[in-house]
């Protein structure tokens, strides 16, 4: 069961509109290495983990990923705040505006909608944890690509924070893998 807490995991203070940046950041919302997929991947796997170690770690990290989804949504809202259809046109985002207006929609940077094909569960604890570790590494790499594309210091702060979380998650999954290897 979850209980909502009315605050962000990390403060977002973005004041400068940047539609193009919002569009690429969207990839970490609904793209293949995004936080929505991460949350689903871990929470979904947590139910069938072989012991309390696996169940607990996957539930805790899956829950944290949901708070990252929220951060990204607030970042995209801040980056598009007050934008008109003309601004979308100027940013070359008529396609996005046509289907979603100013709403958020989980998709990758080139517009492919979120799909559960991004996550997997194969009934093998070793294969699943390897998948989780790879997912963390790929998410870290995508955050680094986004950091490369960003100059606004207020966007960099949460991106650097989110990137670092992937490093920590990777390390914990690796420890969980060692635990099952030694069992």
């Amino acid at each position, binding site marked *: 069961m979850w209980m909502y*807490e009315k605050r962000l995991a990390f403060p977002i*203070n973005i004041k400068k509109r940047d539609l193009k940046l919002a569009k690429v950041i969207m990839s970490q919302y609904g793209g293949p290495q995004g936080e929505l997929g991460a949350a689903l991947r871990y929470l979904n796997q947590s139910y069938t983990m072989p012991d309390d170690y696996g169940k607990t770690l996957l539930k*805790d990290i899956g829950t944290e990923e949901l708070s990252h989804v*929220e951060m990204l949504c607030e970042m995209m809202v801040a980056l598009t705040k007050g934008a008109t259809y003309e601004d979308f046109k100027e940013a070359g985002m008529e396609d996005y505006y046509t289907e979603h207006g100013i709403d958020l929609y989980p998709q990758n940077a080139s517009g492919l909608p979120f799909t559960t094909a991004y996550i997997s569960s194969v009934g093998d604890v070793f294969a699943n944890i390897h998948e989780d570790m790879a997912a963390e590494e790929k998410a870290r790499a995508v955050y*680094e690509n986004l950091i490369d594309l960003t100059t606004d210091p207020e966007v960099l*702060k949460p991106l650097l924070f989110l*990137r670092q979380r992937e490093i920590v998650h990777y390390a914990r999954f690796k*420890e969980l893998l060692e*635990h099952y290897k*030694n069992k």
Partner: protein
Amino acid sequence: MNHINYFKNYLVKDNNLTSDNLGFLRGNMFEDLYKPYKNYQIKEVTITNEKDKLLYEISMYAFIMNDLALYLDTHPNDANVLEKFVEAKMRYCNLVNEYEKKYNALTLTSDSLNTTPWKWLNNWPNGVYN
């Protein structure tokens, strides 16, 4: 519960924990796990009023609780880190109490929701930060 050898022997080194504020800004409480990106520096978050400052501290201790909890999930016998976890939890609870008394409810358990009008409607995160 029967703990596995791997966990029992892999305890955090002394002084491996980063300070509260820097650990939060970095997104990592563990000195030996921290990996900076290129030469990007960690910058302080801009805070302009008392309310945001309190909320910042709440988020900081909630972060520390969560990061230490993930560690304890795989190192359940580490008494040093558990002690730090208990301390962060205590600070978090006190700060939430103070914030909810002064401002708005963060969760449905807040006593600030006991009177009309229904205050749960206010205080959305983006309203706080943007």
